[in-house]
């Protein structure tokens, strides 16, 4: 077990609660800033920045606000989204940059910490992605990098929430088995294997793969009062 890698994971976990509590709107702001940064990278082209903004737009519409559920009087029920924890961002050497940016921005928007573990061939891109993320204002422990060699250790670490992988089926099969062999929680494998159509990443509901949902139920009559009914009065209806 590589201690350095363990430390990366530990740091991410230590920061996660705080990051998760910052809220979707705040994180969306940071991603927008990041989009501005990567738009200035001439080697990146325009698409990656567009992808980041797109994911914020789509994601925010779905998880930006707590959802008040309907139900009986005297009780409030709210559904809201949280990040799942620490995600590993992994890809094949020929993965489109837009897809990678889509994975990163969606994972972050949802409230997860990420660890980039990209192939050797993409080290330069990895560094650029990482440095622009930091410039945009993401906390260090929220966005970290690890070498490609460490991917296996990261994937098999039972404390990570899952892997977001862009690439080919053969590799995805392998990752899936590695994840399934872990003890502990069922890890999420979020895949994009259709590298031309990006059908997963462009799914309108993609962000839901990166979240966990919480329901908060409060009995508002516990102390007696039932404001909802009081407010209704006897109305003219």
């Amino acid at each position, binding site marked *: 077990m590589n201690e350095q890698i363990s430390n990366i994971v530990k740091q991410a976990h230590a920061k996660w609660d705080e990051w998760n509590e910052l809220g979707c709107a705040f994180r969306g702001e940071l991603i927008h800033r990041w989009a501005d940064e990567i738009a200035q990278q001439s080697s990146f082209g325009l698409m990656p920045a567009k992808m980041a903004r797109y994911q914020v737009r789509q994601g925010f519409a779905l998880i930006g606000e707590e959802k008040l*559920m309907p139900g009986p009087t005297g009780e409030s029920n709210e559904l809201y989204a949280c990040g799942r924890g620490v995600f590993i961002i992994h890809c094949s050497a020929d993965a489109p940059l837009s897809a990678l940016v889509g994975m990163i921005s969606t994972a972050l928007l949802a409230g997860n910490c990420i660890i980039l573990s990209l192939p050797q061939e993409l080290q330069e891109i990895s560094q650029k992605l990482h440095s622009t993320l930091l410039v945009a204002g993401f906390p260090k422990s929220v966005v970290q990098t690890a070498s490609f060699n460490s991917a296996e250790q990261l994937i098999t670490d039972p404390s990570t929430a899952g892997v977001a992988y862009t690439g080919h089926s053969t590799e995805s099969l392998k990752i899936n088995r590695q994840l399934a*062999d872990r003890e502990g929680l069922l890890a999420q494998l979020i895949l994009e294997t259709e590298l031309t159509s990006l059908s997963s990443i*462009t*799914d309108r509901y993609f962000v839901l793969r990166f979240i966990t*949902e919480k329901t*908060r*139920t409060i009995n508002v009559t516990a102390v007696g009062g039932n404001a909802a009914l009081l407010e209704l009065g006897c109305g003219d209806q």
Partner: protein
Amino acid sequence: MTEFIAQDSLQKSFIDRPLDDLWSLISPLYMVDEDYWLKQLLPMASPSAQEKISICDNASDLINRVRADKQAIQMIDALLLEYSLDTKEGILLMCLAEALMRIPDTATADALIRDKLSVADWKSHLKNSDSTFVNASTWGLLLTGKVINLDTAKDAESSNVINRFVNKLSEPVIRQAMNQAMKIMGHQFVLGRNIREAQKNGSPFTSKGYGYSYDMLGESALTTEDAKKYFDAYMAAVESVGAEQLKSTQIKIAASVSIKLSALHPRYEVANKGRVLSEMYESVLVLIKRARELDVSLTIDAEEADRLELSLVLFEKLYRSEINRGWGKLGLVVQSYTKRALPVLTWLAALAKEQGDCIPLRLVKGAYWDSELKLAQQNGYDAYPVFTRKEATDVSYLACARFLLSDHIRGLIYPQFASHNAHTVAAVASMATHSDYEFQRLHGMGDALYKHAVDIFDCNVRIYAPVGSHKDLLPYLVRRLLENGANSSFVHRLVDADCAVETLIEHPVETLLRRPTLHNGLIPLPPQIFADRKNSYSVNIDIDSEVKPFEAAVNLHMTTYWQGGAIINGIKFYPCDDSEEKNLHRVTAPYDRNIDVGSVQFSNKENIENAAASAYEFYPQWAQTEVSERAQYLNVLADLLEKNMPELIALCHKEAGKTIHDSIDEVREAVDFCRYYAQQAQGNFATVTTVTGFDEVTRQVKRQGKGIFVCISPWNFPLAIFLGQISAALVSGNTVLAKPAEQTSLIAARAVELMLEAGIPAKAIHLLPGTGADIGGPLTADLRIAGVVFTGSTETAQRINRSLAQRKCEAGTLIAETGGQNVMIVDSTALPEQVVRDVLRSAFASAGQRCSALRVLFVQQDIADRVIHLIQGAMQELRVGLPYLHNTDVGPVIDKNSKDKLLAHIDKMLKINKLVGQIPLDESCLSGDFVPPTAIEISSLAQLENEQFGPILHIIRYQADQLDDVIDQINNSGFGLTMGIHSRNEAGYRSIEKRCRVGNCYINRDQVGAVVGVQPFGGQGLSGTGPKAGGPHYLLRFSKQVSVNHSPLSQSL
């Protein structure tokens, strides 16, 4: 059955009908159509021309006199006027009053004060009220000196004086001031801390000619010990009132004592009718005997609508007893907001006529309105037991008054009209043609109103006075007041000079007739509380007219012998002569293994292959089927489930060992799943949507299924989760192979039969009963499977995941709902009685066999002794037994394997931990798989390794300053399904909820019984993958987005 025609009750002969006939008219009106019933009551409530003039004159006179009276606004009136319950400050003040005095530890008390004081604008109230009481009891007089100094100080940035005050002064001073304020409030609400003090404090009014009714109010008794305590208090009151009466000659109206039945027995409920009519009957009889000896009238208070019929049965038995016969001073209370009020009065009048003893009867408007509405909505009853407009209740009140004041009732019932409304007082006085009646008012309320009413009408007035320690009583009274906030409105308007007298004296008949509908259109009926689908239907088994036909229908199926087996392409592979022996399974009842319920033939390899091949082959066609058609099948299925509810309930009793309530809830949840997913699919999948992609190209997309889904469901919700999984998969456009838990295959087979009856194509749904190894193993390894939805243990979920991952194909979708280690955190602001009720339900309902059930109670050290003592006492009142009996609280566990594991855990725990309580099992449990509900005190969460899926509650004490550690323990367990919090500190419970990594958090209630579409259900971490079942995102996981007109992505990705 004859129909009750309201106006007939005014005919003299009406009450000469046989008592049984009159009784039979009561229950059917339980939730009669409100408009229909009000149309009947309106003529009775309408004033004659002459009455109209006299009511108008008298009511205006009364209001004008009160307004001219400088001392009119006193005590509670004044408090309510300043801190109206429709202001934030009013509610917060009451919330503080409700909780502060019971908090034993200062840290928690200070935190609560901070919580309540920091969010409202108290300054705006400081000088508004002329009442010294208001200023004193709130933050005025006690704090004025300092507050005003602060206010005039230079740094007047913050307008919130109290905030600054709170921040600047040391907390002990604030706490003391607050406690002092609460004490003053206590004095205003409570006549005396004990009966003697109450009598002494009441003497000024007694000498003015007022009578008293003393009430030792408080929480309902949860334990025999508490019931005994209340009994003693009532007895002491009777003794003391009796003694006073003997020595005094000046008392104009003899004092009476009011008793609350729920305080006299821990199980005052229809389910325990036998105990109510024996144990409770005996103890009330003792009170009556002594009261009669001392000639102290007794009044039995009214409580929730579900208990009305039971209370009348008990009343009749008491009334007819030798001890009461010939006395004429045993009375009761009737609430006019209940639709059954008038028929109840006619029955009581006939009872009095038959026996010849007068019945004193207090007519009130009713105090549980909010909770009656909430309950009816939660339970999905057809309608409400109460009226939905205040003026409708007033109409009912006046109709009842008309009946009570009619000549043929005189001498049979002595009416006691409780009201604080000037119009009601004037109307009753106008209707009365004799003076054999009295008015009643609450201690501290309506003083001025009645002072002047006595002058005008020369009427008798009795004051209803709560008696008891402030610490116990104030919270109770404040809760009542909050629940009934609407009642305070008249107090406001009465003394508010801006409110024209004319508006106050409008007759409720006129007000009601002015409304577009007689019922309140803003309050939907329980079946319609969801805008886009019908709420599932339920039966109120506490109501005679509801339960009788229900029981008869269920009983028809209690002797059925069911059969089940694989259902493939609509063909049933049920047990037959040439069934293979090894696949044939006998099904016996969990509560009695001697009872044969049916038999099941488990699936063989050929079944599995045929089912998979058919589902695979049919998938493209099913995916192409219109969403509206798929949704419609589910809606039809929901209706079929409701139609077949009696049989399904019988099956739930017999195959799964479920109690009546659990069985009803089971069917309801299945119905809700079908309707909710049908509606969700229509919303999400029905149309082709135009979307703009990240590349700014617009495309047309829609959602479609993924292929075959394997649905592996558990035995603990054999119908609800079984159908929840399947209906979600089907409606999203997948074909389904369903593998039910082997323990509950019969229910599954019956459910699939109903699915086919609903028209779902036989190739879309195949049932494969059998063991996990035989069925789940091959299916999860099959390349044709697109996904698995599973509810069960974490270990099995991992096995399924590995099996899916081993396949040489695209990763399958796994939606898993797994175990939990559910906790509840209770701090010292919580009300112990509420906590214990919710703990018992959360831990022991369904024999603890719910994923959401409470396993570990964390209770703050400062109140732990009290809470644990109450749990011990309340557990002794629970009944373990045959699940189909109404008085059974806890049924059997699912099988012997489960029983042995649970018993072994109890043994292991008890070697090193302390037993808090255990319910002994009686002989009815001998032949079944029962586990005695058990509570054990342990030292830390680390003592528990796995979830124990049964009626076992662990209790851990924690110190207030260890809360962070408790939260860490919970998060470190890795599980995160449900959690409960009991606290009055809003900032506190919100922070706990935020920090705990759990899927469903329930605050100030029990933590079981998530409702589809209301409380989406599911956990995180070791507890499941999500998305939440019964939530808006569930179906999305069963489906994928596809392009309708494929336009490739722009270049340069």
